[in-house]
């Protein structure tokens, strides 16, 4: 499973690693300010530091693992993920509450995080097995649809609408990147549009209300709508140059909820202004473009699909999270990669980055280890 030698080490992508470190440092500095209370940094900051260190270890492990190992174990990982999701569901039913965690001794596992990686790897596996065929015909796409539907369905039940949506976005991104027959694309769009009113009719009024609020937060002026306004004020009042480190007012008080997780970008934009926001945006989008570059140069289709999947995962999280903070996206609880507080997300994202680097190291332009 581990295969690493001098030649590979030489191929290590130092640029990508440096970019990741810069983003992590920016995130830590921002979190320091976001959770700074009563004149001292809060426990969130130190916890995050621990998570980052743990995540970096995970990333190193991910780098060392060969792409063949990922390829050979994709199906097992997928099955394990489905079982864990069902377990969480059953456990939630027993305790009659929403449940996203599985406790294994001192470690809490969040299977919905695992689901993102499982989906990406299993898609890579599937495309690899179909390698000679370029654009898969409709009947070859049925199985992938079923695979993603199972994961998304189980996660919607938790209920974790945000992660389920993210899974679908990753799935369709891979599909489009790898190419879809025009007929399939047309059928999907038309079929989806036709199915919507049917599904809508089956929903209970409170479910409709929740979805409408999801799309238009202003329908809930005392909840999500209020959060959006507060976030916009925070971002807007940052101006061109920002209020300065630790000088943000909007986020310090409890006006802005979840300012260390979902609205962490608002804190940054308030304190560092338009200029700072552009810098952090460039860093994040550079990471995405870098991921696309890894995909383009991958030595086989598995690597290509996995790199695209991971890149899509970063991209959509970034776009949805920042879009929410500046009021152009629905309020979904999706954190900003590498900047938001949270252990599970940090571990998943760093591990995914490790996989990306592992693929990068074994690119076709380098001598193949086989």
């Amino acid at each position: 499973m581990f295969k690493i030698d001098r030649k590979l080490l030489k191929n290590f992508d130092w640029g990508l690693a440096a970019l990741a470190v810069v983003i992590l440092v920016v995130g830590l500095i921002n979190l320091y300010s976001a959770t700074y209370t009563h004149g001292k940094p809060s426990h969130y900051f130190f916890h995050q530091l621990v998570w980052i260190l743990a995540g970096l270890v995970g990333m190193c492990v991910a780098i060392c693992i060969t792409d063949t190992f990922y390829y050979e174990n994709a199906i097992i990982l997928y099955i394990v993920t489905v079982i864990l999701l069902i377990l969480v569901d059953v456990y939630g039913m027993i305790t009659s509450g929403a449940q996203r965690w599985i406790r294994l001794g001192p470690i809490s596992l969040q299977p919905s995080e695992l689901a993102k990686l499982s989906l990406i790897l299993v898609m890579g596996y599937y495309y690899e097995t179909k390698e000679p065929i370029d654009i898969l015909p409709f009947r070859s796409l049925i199985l992938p649809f079923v695979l993603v539907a199972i994961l998304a369905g189980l996660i919607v039940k938790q209920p974790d609408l945000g992660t389920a949506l993210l899974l679908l976005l990753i799935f369709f991104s891979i599909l489009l990147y790898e190419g879809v027959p025009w007929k399939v694309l047309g059928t999907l769009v038309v079929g989806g549009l036709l199915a919507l009113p049917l599904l809508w009719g089956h929903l209970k009024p409170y479910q409709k209300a929740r979805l409408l609020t999801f799309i238009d937060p202003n329908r809930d002026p005392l909840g999500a709508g209020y959060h959006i306004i507060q976030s916009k004020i925070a971002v807007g009042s940052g101006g061109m140059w920002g209020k300065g480190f630790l000088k943000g007012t909007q986020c310090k008080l409890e006006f802005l909820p979840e300012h260390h997780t979902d609205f962490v970008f608002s804190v940054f934009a308030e304190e560092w202004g338009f200029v700072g926001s552009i810098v952090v945006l460039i860093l994040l989008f550079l990471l995405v473009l870098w991921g696309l570059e890894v995909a383009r140069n991958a030595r086989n289709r598995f690597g290509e699909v996995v790199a695209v999947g991971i890149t899509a995962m970063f991209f959509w999280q970034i776009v949805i999270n920042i879009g929410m903070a500046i009021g152009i996206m629905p309020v979904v609880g999706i954190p900003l990669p590498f900047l938001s507080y949270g252990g599970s997300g940090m571990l998943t994202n760093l591990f995914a980055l490790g996989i990306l680097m592992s693929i990068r190291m074994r690119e076709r332009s380098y001598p193949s280890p086989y």
Partner: protein
Amino acid sequence: MTVERGGRSKLIRAVFPVLVVLMAFMGIVSRLWYLQVLQYDKFHRLSLSNRIRLKAIPAIRGMIFDRDGNLLVDNRPSFCAAIVPEDVKNREALFSFLSYVLNMKIDEIKKRLKGKAYYASFQPRIIKANCSTVEVAKMQAHLMEFPGLEILVRSRRHYLYGKLASHILGYIGEISQRELRRMKKEGYHPGDFIGKYGVEKTFEKELKGKEGGYQVEVDANGRDVKVLRKVDPIPGHNIYLTLSLQLQQKLEKLMEGKSGAAVAVDPTTGEILAMVSHPNFDPNLLTKRLTAKQWKALISDPSHPLLDRTIQGTYPPGSTFKIVTAVAGLEEGVIQASTLLFCPGYLKFGRRSYRCWKKSGHGKITIHQAIVGSCDVFFYQVGLKLGINRLAFYAKAFGLGRKTGIALPHEKAGLIPDTLWKKRRFHEPWFEGETLSVAIGQGYVLTTPLQMAMLMASVANGGKLERPLIVKEVRDIQGKVVKVFKPQIVSRIPVSERVLSIIQSGLWGVVNEPHGTAHRARLKDINVSGKTGTAQVIRIKRRSSQPTSERFKDHAWFVAYAPSEAPTVAMSVLVEHGGHGGEAAAPIAGKFLRFYFDGPEVY
């Protein structure tokens, strides 16, 4: 190894995704430009002292009525002086002003503020509720000079009849931090009021309604400038109790000055018509902010006014339990209606002599005479023939030893002992001598007054054990019925009509025959059936300030139903340390039944 895929243009694959990513980037950048550069002035202004705020509009809590629609509990407006710490400019000046106007010590104001440290800084903290008009006028006149001072209009719970039915209605109070953690998901905030006791607690969900609120833009001093969005509150539902105000008032009056409990129930439906526990309390006082001292005085009061004796007080049922022993004996066939047993005034069992309350003895008597004269020795013998487990089976069939399931909080189950229980509790076998005590309702047996009323109701209605109902229906603000509580039979008691009629005629005799123990409950033109009981207070608990003689006086019981032929009301009366049931409890039932049948116009 690497297969070149030919179908797609490599150029598109390399360029198209990058274009999508760049478009997203540009979209976000242009939005940031709009917010941070073009709209900077607007957002900068709004960010100063947090100009956009959320203010709550509390929902009006549902009202509580009696069964005939008489209002028992409603809401009155209350003006509250509040401080929003975020807006306060000059703390010391504000505190000394409030101290002068509200006649409070500055330290106390500070303490009230500090006690609410878990509120967000822009949430108003109430310093004093129920301000007088003079106080409000003074504050209103100086409002502009003291940013951060607010006068809030909140509603105050008002219990129209004070202490009436206080244990049933309950009271509301400010939500505690513990409750808040548990209820946060259901939309509760710090400072909300929540049902703490009685129907106010069990029907919290129905009474509460849904809070509204508005997004408002405020000026630098925290004053409203413009309402941006508003959501109207939804008022809570109204509750209609099964209680009748008139009957409740009468029963409260009869129990006045006594310590004890009384319950009147409709045996055909299980609806509670009146239910009294004395001493009681005034919920109006509890709804106000009590000082720690007042609260301590209330809960450490030796007469326990907060204890609902009807469902939380457990007492040995005394001779009223003989109804159960009689049913068990007849049903199990250990005695017949005609069986004669001899009472010489005592029963020798083992090395002890168990006495009958009548020293001279009852002589040779049947079950009918034994019920009428409440002969202890007769029932000792029945109990011995039955054994404890068969006796316990019938007691449990009558609903004793378990909660009745009334919709009130903190109900107690009482206790019906049997061999298994004793083994578990004391790791000891059951002694037969203990069966003697149980057969006459002493020893380990504990019942609540409500259980005994329901037992009497089941004797009256032919053996159906009903669930006691305290709420008849829930209606929304328009008067539309949302929920109805229909009579519900918990179980049928395993008793034949033949046996039941023997019991019923015995109970009639208790009130109406010459040797009956409850002639004081007799009415002129209505047949009343009943049973007296005297529960021994054997165990000495703690030393108390009360005189010893009063402490050791027995509890007086009386259970009854009327009219005997077709009962419409069943009841139980318990007077703590009242002495003999026939003297202390039966007259209360008699007077209540007279009022029930004849109405207030006669008396």
